């Protein structure tokens, strides 16, 4: 080996300048990329912690994301609440109807002069009987006039917004299970509603909370009689409370809170209905069900037009929305009106305290996010209210099939 080394001729060459530059360039390129990736991941974590989202999409979306959409929506709403001169109302509303395809023959008020502005015309009612309910009692009805953008089953916890664009169900509805109705953290008494016989009948068979089923006898006292504390009484039997809590804790690590119990022969379905500007903008209950809680996500107000739905992934999870969570005869049921720039606010008839597209709620959301940050926790991104009802068995606000629930208002 020594001989071989001694006899080997060593000749030194200079490295060509180009190769050196390329080497140094590639090293630098790699380092910059690694640094940017780390910063991006750190930023995403920070954004998630603060409840913010970064948008990806074409230049139109990037420009749109820089606009103060909520402020524009409020301004647009104020503008539409200005009283229109009496003699301009009919031609104005007819022009609007012509452009957006409003069927004036079914509008409740035949005299269009009665609508003082576009906002009131937009939130018009229809003549009685103009929207007959499907006679099949097992049908899930359309909640609104509009176009069915997408429907199907929930696969691996994802909803398809439009073909090829999916988003997580947890991102839409919220990442943690709502507080069981038997242990309300913040109860709000809705306007009294008559109990629905269909719902009561279903409840007598079983009751489900957050995908966890428990038999109705658990809601009864030991002697088989219904425990009927007064509506204002918050003292719930501790055994039931702890039972539901323990069940929820056991269920959480293995499956998302909205997932049906593995033992049931049910699955999750979804449907997305888009309302165009000319459509009737009040929404109705698709089935007989009980709303147990409401979550208000004070997000942005992008347009939800089919074009933007195709262009901006996860659009529904970015926009301001009100998630209503509850149950129906087959288990979990959720109903989510999603706001848009040109609409502005979402109204619920049975929840007068809900304020959407409001500076106050935005400020409250910012404050909640800041408090969560101070505590070192992730901000859930929504405020939640539990609905109480006169009947402890229902544990929420009962809605009849086809009943008007609220609507989208201008501004």
């Amino acid at each position, binding site marked *: 080996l020594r001989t071989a080394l001694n006899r080997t001729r060593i000749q030194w060459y200079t490295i060509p300048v180009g190769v050196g530059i390329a080497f140094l360039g590639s090293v630098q390129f790699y380092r910059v990329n690694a640094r940017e990736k780390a910063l991006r991941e750190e930023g995403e974590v920070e954004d998630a912690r603060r409840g913010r989202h970064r948008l990806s999409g074409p230049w139109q979306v990037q420009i749109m994301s820089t606009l103060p959409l909520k402020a524009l929506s409020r301004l647009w709403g104020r503008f539409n609440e200005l009283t229109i001169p009496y003699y301009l109302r009919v031609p104005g509303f007819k022009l609007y109807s012509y452009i957006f395809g409003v069927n004036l023959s079914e509008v409740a008020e035949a005299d269009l002069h009665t609508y003082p502005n576009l906002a009131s015309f937009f939130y018009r009612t229809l003549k009685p009987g103009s*929207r*007959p*309910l*499907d006679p*099949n009692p*097992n*049908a*899930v*009805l*359309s*909640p*609104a*006039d*509009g*176009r*069915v*953008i*997408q*429907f199907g089953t929930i696969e691996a916890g994802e*909803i398809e917004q439009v073909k090829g664009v999916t988003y997580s*169900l947890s991102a*839409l*509805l919220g990442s943690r299970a709502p507080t069981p109705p038997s242990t309300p953290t913040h109860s709000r008494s809705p306007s009294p509603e008559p109990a629905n016989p269909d719902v009561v009948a279903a409840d007598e068979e079983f009751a489900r909370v957050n995908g966890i089923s428990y038999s109705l006898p658990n809601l009864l006292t030991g002697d088989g009689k219904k425990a009927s504390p007064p509506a204002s009484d918050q003292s719930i039997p501790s055994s039931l409370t702890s039972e539901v809590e323990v069940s929820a804790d056991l269920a959480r690590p293995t499956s998302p809170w*909205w997932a*049906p119990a593995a033992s*049931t*022969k*049910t*699955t*999750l*379905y*979804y*449907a*997305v*209905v*888009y*309302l165009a500007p000319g459509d*009737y*903008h009040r*929404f*109705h209950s*698709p*089935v007989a069900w009980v709303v147990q809680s409401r979550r208000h996500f004070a997000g942005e107000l992008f347009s*939800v037009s089919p074009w933007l739905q195709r262009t901006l992934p996860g659009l*529904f999870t970015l926009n301001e929305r009100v998630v209503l969570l509850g149950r*129906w005869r*087959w*288990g*979990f*049921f*959720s*109903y*989510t*009106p*999603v*706001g*848009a720039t040109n*609409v502005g606010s979402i109204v619920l008839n049975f929840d007068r305290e809900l304020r959407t597209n409001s500076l106050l709620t935005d400020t409250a959301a910012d404050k909640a996010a800041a408090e969560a940050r101070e505590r070192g926790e992730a901000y859930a991104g929504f405020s939640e209210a539990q609905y109480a009802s006169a009947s402890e068995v229902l544990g929420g606000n009962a809605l009849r099939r*086809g009943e008007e629930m609220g609507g*989208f208002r201008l501004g």
Partner: protein
Amino acid sequence: STIVLVFEAPKDGWKWEVKRGERVKVGQALGEV
């Protein structure tokens, strides 16, 4: 505006009664159990 419904229903007994892109009105059946 948009409304998103997510609900639990039987795996075998559910049937959609609408098509993608179809116009619907309040009270019309989207599907049935």
